[in-house]
């Protein structure tokens, strides 16, 4: 196989894996054509989270935080083992964010800094590339204390979150706007053509309903910033920030595959540097760094003198012109210690903050099946799969609702969407078990088992029509999905401001039956600030956050053992 073929294989591999990843996110969606099993379960036909399960950083983080490698995360060995032998091929050949950064970096530019000398200089190894190792050790240390922060920067979680909650919904907004605009021209062939294109593309690209997400600007701008940085430094994210890249760099310490330089043929043309993706020093005057190389093969392919060769058991020693290559990571023990200390210090800081436990936001309503908050924060990687799949657009990324520690973790905002009692999709797609997979039976409960509760509804009598405004309305009761209904009505005869007798039915909430699903809040006609609203108290997952002293039935989960 010639080097050009190998380089083309790498290109194909990048495209294929990127498309697979993108397709899996697209399929993390409640499809109109889904079927239902005999037992009434509606399940997604594809294992949409498998890409996230390939992530060794997530597997390691959860192992440290929780002492377990959760289910599918054992698949991450498929990435880790080849890395040990071959180096960071995952970064150069597979990672979807890596590929995206690669492509954006390579769009030709007129700017001086990216041409010739300037670009060669920017592609030399720089000290900023160490930052990723500090971040890696920071996250690992935080995970040791049970705070899984690495989802913020882990490339696969980041990619799934950004595409699922920001990019695709934005595409939906653009598509809808464009279609309306073209139709408004009033030229019917054009309008029909636009409609045809829209109808063809929408089953693939768009969701059934356009989604609107809370705090989405933070996610979107962060993603844009990562992409834009590629125009300053080639693959800036991969070189300098990516904690998964750092982990794989460390695991490539004993790689038997690498770059062998032949200084006799080299005439110092620096073409290798001009095309280097990892800033790993392929040129004759630098030492080659295994931990930075993403094995893109560009240097070997471009070398006019065949002086560079990727091979098994390469000679990495010093030659006349070239310094010895290194498989070590460019950080000192002292800096590792400082990073670890910072990670260890951050967790107590987070948890001394009042948002954790003592003054938690009443709106911090976690998805059904979410594990207790302390465990949740040691599991959730903020991949946004649950938010994307929720058919009612009920789940949203937090901004500061759960403190800085929980940024971009999921909460339910019933005003936008409520939790459908028979829907179990968020638990199905969660790759880490932060949301446990429930069956419909478990979620709804029965005579012996309690339903899964996410909170409790409260009535604001000043805003409620029958309570405060002598006006009939029973919408919350109508929408209440529990049986018997948690919202019940009492007949009252009221006299309104015009001395007319108005019989009304006033709603009450039975806290023993309410599951906090939020259907009442969603349906309440007082749209801007609803007269009935849900807060997290009464949630099944918490022992402390309760109102009722004793509730009937056994809690779900306890029954399982």
């Amino acid at each position, binding site marked *: 196989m010639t080097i050009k073929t190998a380089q083309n294989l790498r290109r194909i591999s990048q495209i294929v894996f990127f498309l697979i990843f993108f397709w899996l996110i697209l399929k993390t969606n409640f499809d109109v054509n889904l079927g239902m099993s005999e037992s009434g379960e509606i399940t997604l036909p594809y294992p949409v989270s498998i890409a996230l399960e390939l992530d060794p950083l997530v597997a390691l983080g959860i192992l440290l935080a929780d002492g377990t490698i959760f289910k599918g995360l054992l698949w991450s060995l498929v990435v880790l083992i080849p890395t040990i032998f071959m180096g960071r091929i995952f970064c150069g050949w597979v990672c979807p964010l890596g590929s995206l950064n690669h492509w954006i970096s390579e769009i030709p530019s007129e700017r001086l800094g990216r041409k010739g000398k300037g670009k060669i200089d920017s592609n030399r190894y720089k000290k900023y590339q160490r930052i990723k190792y500090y971040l890696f050790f920071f996250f690992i240390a935080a995970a040791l204390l049970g705070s899984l922060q690495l989802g913020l920067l882990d490339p696969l979680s980041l990619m799934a979150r950004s595409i699922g909650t920001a990019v695709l919904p934005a595409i939906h907004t653009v598509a809808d706007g464009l279609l309306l605009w073209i139709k408004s021209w009033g030229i019917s062939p054009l309008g029909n053509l636009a409609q045809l294109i829209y109808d063809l593309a929408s089953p693939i690209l768009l969701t059934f309903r356009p989604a609107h997400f809370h705090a989405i600007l933070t996610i979107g701008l962060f993603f844009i910033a990562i992409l834009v940085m590629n125009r300053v430094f080639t693959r800036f994210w991969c070189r300098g920030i990516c904690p998964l890249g750092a982990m794989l760099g460390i695991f490539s310490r004993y790689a038997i595959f690498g770059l062998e330089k032949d200084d006799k043929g080299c005439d110092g043309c620096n073409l290798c540097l001009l095309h280097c993706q990892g800033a790993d020093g392929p040129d004759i005057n630098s030492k080659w760094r295994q931990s930075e190389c993403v094995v893109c093969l560009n240097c070997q392919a471009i070398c006019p003198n065949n002086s560079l060769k990727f091979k098994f058991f390469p000679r990495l020693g010093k030659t006349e012109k070239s310094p010895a290559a290194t498989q070590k990571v460019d950080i000192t023990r002292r800096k590792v210690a400082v990073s670890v200390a910072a990670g260890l210090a951050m967790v107590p800081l987070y948890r001394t903050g009042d948002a954790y436990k003592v003054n938690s936001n009443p709106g911090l309503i976690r998805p059904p099946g979410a594990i207790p908050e302390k465990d949740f924060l040691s599991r959730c990687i903020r991949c946004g799969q649950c938010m994307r799949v929720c058919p009612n657009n009920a789940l949203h990324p937090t901004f500061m609702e759960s403190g800085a520690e929980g940024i971009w973790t999921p909460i339910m905002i019933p005003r936008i969407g409520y939790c459908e009692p028979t829907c179990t999709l968020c638990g199905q797609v969660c790759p880490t078990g932060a949301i446990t997979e429930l069956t419909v039976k478990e979620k709804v409960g029965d005579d012996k088992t309690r339903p899964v509760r996410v909170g409790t509804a409260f009535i604001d009598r000043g805003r409620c029509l029958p309570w405060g405004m002598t006006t009939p309305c029973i919408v919350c009761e109508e929408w209440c999905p529990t049986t018997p209904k948690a919202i019940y009505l009492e007949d009252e005869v009221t006299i309104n401001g015009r001395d007319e007798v108005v019989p009304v039915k006033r709603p009450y909430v039975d806290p023993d039956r309410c599951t906090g699903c939020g259907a009442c809040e969603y349906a309440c*006609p007082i749209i801007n600030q609803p007269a009935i609203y849900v807060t997290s108290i009464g949630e099944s997952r918490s022992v402390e956050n309760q109102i009722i002293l004793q509730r009937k039935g056994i809690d779900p989960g306890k029954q399982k053992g």
Partner: protein
Amino acid sequence: MERREFLIKAGQATALVVATVATGFYFHNREIAGSDKIIFKTTGFEIPPDSTLPVIALARNEDHIAALHDSLEAVGWIGRFIKPGERVTIKPNIAWDRSPEQAADTNPYLVGEMVRLCIAAGAAEVIVTDNPCNDARRTFIRSGIKEQAEKAGARVILPQTEDFIMTDLKGELLTVWPVLKYFVETDRFINMPIVKQHSLSSCTIGMKNLYGILGGRRNQLHQKIDQSIVDLAAFIRPTLTVVDATHVLMRGGPQGGSPGDVKTVHTVICSTDQVAADARGCELLGLKPEHVGHIVLAQKSGLGQLDYRRAGYKEIV
């Protein structure tokens, strides 16, 4: 500055001033485009009365398809309502994410059979749709209606935002509302409700089922529920009302959930008078029609006969 350069610059500046001022005046105080078109449409889908046939027929049979056939035959069979080449829209109640045995949505097998009958009668197209309360993807799947109706050959449509058109209902309470277009742009309209208890309107059968043709914030309609139901019934007058009372939701309506709240009655009612259909249907819930606000108001508004026996009633049991 040379004279030539001065003239060019001055010319350019003048052109820019003219363009700016012209743009300002051209767009000054323009009406903002894009306000919704309002549609006026007649929505009387009734067929002429036939004095030889009963207006309303009830059939009871453990074979629910047979019950449908019996009651339909009594009011003149499908050929009286559907002519070859006509477009038919069937509106079952698909409001809630509930399975058939919970009796919150219309019996899917009756819907399937109705589709089959319409197609056999030569309908050009049969559309089955509803604007549900819960997410349409869930309600259409779980109710079993999507599967059964598609199997029978209907086009099942899950409503999208752009499927609603602003329509003047010309009601006392309901004026301009978004209406799902498939209910106005059709030739024949068959209403297929299920009988359920409802804590504000006492019952939801045929006329209350018409809430499902509306979009918008219809949860405000409950503030004057009787008038809004009657406004809807006056706006859209079905060709035929087929009431599914095979299973009746006695309590916990309109959403139900517990099979314990469901009573199996094995009954189907076909009626060309939607008030009579509701009057007969509410009796299955143990109600008297003269005590049900919207049925009384509909009778007063001249929409139909509350006293269904006088209207022409047949029972096949």
